[in-house]
C-alpha cells in the first residue's frame, strides 16, 4: 500500500502520482493521510485503484472519477464525485452541496447527510444517501437513481427528466413536474439492488418512488406558470 501524507506532500503530487497509475499501474492500494479539508483530492482518476482518505476533504473530492474506488473517512465539501463516470465513492460522514453533480455513472454513497442540490443534473450515476438530502436535490436529474434513506428538503426533483428517486422519509415538497409514482415490482428490484450495492440495510418496501410527470418536456405556453 502506498501512503501519501498531505501534511508533507501537495495535492498536486498526490494527483499526479494517481494519474500516473493510468499509464502504468504498479500500486493499486493507496492511503491518504491528513487531508485536512484540502480541495480537489483524488480527482480525475482513470484506473481501478482503491483509495482511503483518512479525514475530511474539501471541494470536488473524487471529481470526474473513472474506475477508482475511493472512501473518505470524514466529511466532504462541495461537489464530491462531480461528473463521476464510473467506480465508487463512499463518504463516511456528511457531504456538502452538489454531491454527485452531473455524474454519468458509478456509485456514490453518503453515509451521513447530503446538502442542497444532491445529484443536480445527474446523468446516470446512482446515489445512495443514508441520511437526509437538502433542498433542490436531483434538480434537472437526467438519468440514474437517487436513494434517500432519510428525509428530502424542498423542491425535490425540480424539472426532473428520467432519474428515479426513492425516499424513505418525508419529502418537504416536490419541485416542478416531479410527482409521486407507483412502486411496482421492478422498482422494488431496482431499489433492492441499489441498497445492496451500497451496503445499506433498509427495507425497500418502506420507500416511496418519485419521478417526472413529463409535462415540461416540451415548452408549452400553457405550462408557463410552472416554470
Amino acid at each position, binding site marked *: 500500500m502506498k501512503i501519501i501524507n498531505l501534511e508533507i506532500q501537495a495535492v498536486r503530487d498526490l494527483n499526479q502520482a494517481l494519474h500516473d497509475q493510468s499509464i502504468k499501474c504498479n500500486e493499486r492500494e493507496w492511503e491518504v493521510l491528513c487531508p485536512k479539508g484540502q480541495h480537489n483530492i483524488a480527482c480525475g482518476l482513470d484506473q481501478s485503484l482503491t483509495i482511503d482518505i483518512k479525514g475530511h476533504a474539501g471541494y470536488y473530492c473524487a471529481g470526474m472519477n473513472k474506475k477508482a474506488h475511493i472512501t473518505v473517512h470524514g466529511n466532504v465539501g*462541495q461537489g464530491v464525485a462531480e461528473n463521476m463516470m464510473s467506480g465508487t465513492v463512499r463518504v463516511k460522514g456528511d457531504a456538502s452541496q452538489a454531491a454527485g453533480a452531473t455524474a454519468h455513472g458509478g456509485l456514490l454513497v453518503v453515509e451521513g447527510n447530503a446538502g442542497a442540490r444532491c445529484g443536480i443534473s445527474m446523468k446516470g450515476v446512482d446515489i445512495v444517501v443514508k441520511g437526509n438530502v437538502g433542498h433542490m436535490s436531483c434538480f434537472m436529474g437526467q438519468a440514474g437513481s437517487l436513494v434517500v434513506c432519510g428525509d428530502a428538503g424542498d423542491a425535490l426533483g425540480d424539472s426532473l427528466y428520467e432519474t428515479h428517486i426513492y425516499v424513505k422519509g418525508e419529502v418537504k415538497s416536490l419541485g416542478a413536474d416531479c410527482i409521486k409514482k407507483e412502486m411496482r415490482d421492478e422498482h422494488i428490484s431496482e431499489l433492492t439492488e441499489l441498497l445492496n450495492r451500497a451496503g445499506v440495510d433498509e427495507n425497500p418496501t418502506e420507500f416511496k418512488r418519485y419521478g417526472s410527470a413529463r409535462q415540461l*418536456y*416540451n*415548452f408549452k405556453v400553457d405550462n408557463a406558470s410552472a416554470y
Partner: protein
Amino acid sequence: MSNSNDVKDGLRESATFDRNTMAEIRRAADTGIYDIRGFGAKRKLPHFDDLLFLGASMSRYPLEGYREKCNTSVTLGTRYAKKPIELEIPITIAGMSFGALSANAKEALGRGANIMGTSTTTGDGGMTPEERGQSSKLVYQYLPSRYGMNPDDLRKADAIEIVLGQGAKPGGGGMLLGQKITDRVAGMRTLPMGVDQRSACRHPDWTGPDDLAIKILELREITDWQVPIYIKVGATRTYYDVKLAIKAGADVIVVDGMQGGTAATQDVFIENVGIPTLAAIPQAVQALQEMKMHRKVQLIVSGGIRNGADVAKCMALGADAVAIGTAALVAMGCNHPRYDEEFKKIGSAAGFYDDYQDGKDPAGITTQDPELTKRLDPVDAGRRLANYLNVLVLEAQTLARACGKNDLRNLEPEDLVALTVESAAMARVPLAGTNWVPGQGF
C-alpha cells in the same frame, strides 16, 4: 428596420409602432409566447464601423504593404498552462454546439480553422470525433449543462473554456428544441429523443468567484496543468467580471459582446441584455491593466466581428485575439441567396433567416435533418472558411502596416479615432479631429 420604399407618399409610419413592432404585437397576440430565434442582436448598435484608423503620414512611419512582415501569431495561455496554444492568426472560431449545428458544419469549422492554423471550439453537448479529428487545436467548452462532458474529452482538449455566459444572452441559459434532437444528439446529452434540452444558466457545482477559483484548480488537476483555462463571459459588467476572472485564475478571458450569435434565445433577451462589443473591450483592458495582467492573461473578444478592420480595431483597443461565429457560418453558406426560394417557403428570406431553433435550415448548417445536412460539403465549406479567414488577416495586416505596426498586437488605441460621440465614449478614443474623449474629464 422598416422599409418604407413601397409605401405611398403621404402615408406616415410611426417610428414607435413601426411595421416590425406591429408584426411582433400581432405574433404575440396570436401565439401567447415570446419569440425564440437564433442569430444575434439585429438592432443598430455603436460598433467598429464608428471607428477609423489614423494611418501614418509625417508623424508616423508606415510599413510597406506588400513587402514588410506584419506578425499575426499569438500565444494564448501563458499564465499557468504547461502547453499554451500557439495560433498562427489571432482569429479563432467561437463555441458552437453539435446539436445546434450539423456534424458536417462542425467538421467544416475544424477544417477551415486547421488550414489557417487557428483553433475552433466545441459547444454544449460535448466533443464529436469529427470535430476533434479535423481540429488540430480544439478548445473544449465547460458549460453549465455539462451535456456530454467527460474527463477523456477534457484531456483531449488543447484548452478548456469555462462558459459563464455569452453575449447574446448574458444571465440566460439555452434551449435546444426537441425538433433538433436526433438519436445521436440525445445520446450525447443523456436525454430522450424529441425532448427540449434546457441548458442551465449557472453551473451546478459552484457559486461565485471564490468557488470558481477552486473549480479551475480542479480542472487543472485533472489535466495535470497542461492546457490553458479560459473564462468566457457575456459583456455586461465587464470591468468587474474580468477582474474576478483574473483573480479566479484564468489564463485567457473571452468577452462576448451583445452582437454575438446564439442558436436559440428569446428575441427580447438578444436585443435588450448586454452591452455592445465596442463598449466592453476598454472595460476589459482597463481591468487587465489595473491588475498588471494585460498581455499576461490574454483577452479574446467576440460579438459582431465581420472583417479585417473589425479584427484590427479590436486588437488596437487591446485584445490579443478575436473569435468569430456568425461570420464563420455565413462564410460557409448560412443565409446564402442560392436558397432564397426555400427560405421563402419557410417564411423567411436569404439574409434574414434566424430560426436556427427550428432545424429547417436550407443551407444544411443549423439543422440535424439528414437530407438538409447533406447539402453542406465539409471540405468545400472548410475551404470557404479558410479563404474568409485569410481575407480577414490580409485586411488586418494592411491596416496595421499603414499604422506602422509590424505585429497586429502592436496596434494601440492611439491609432484610432471615433466618428460619433457615443463610440468615442465607449471606445475611449478621441472624436475624429479633436482631442476630446467623452467621459475622460476634458
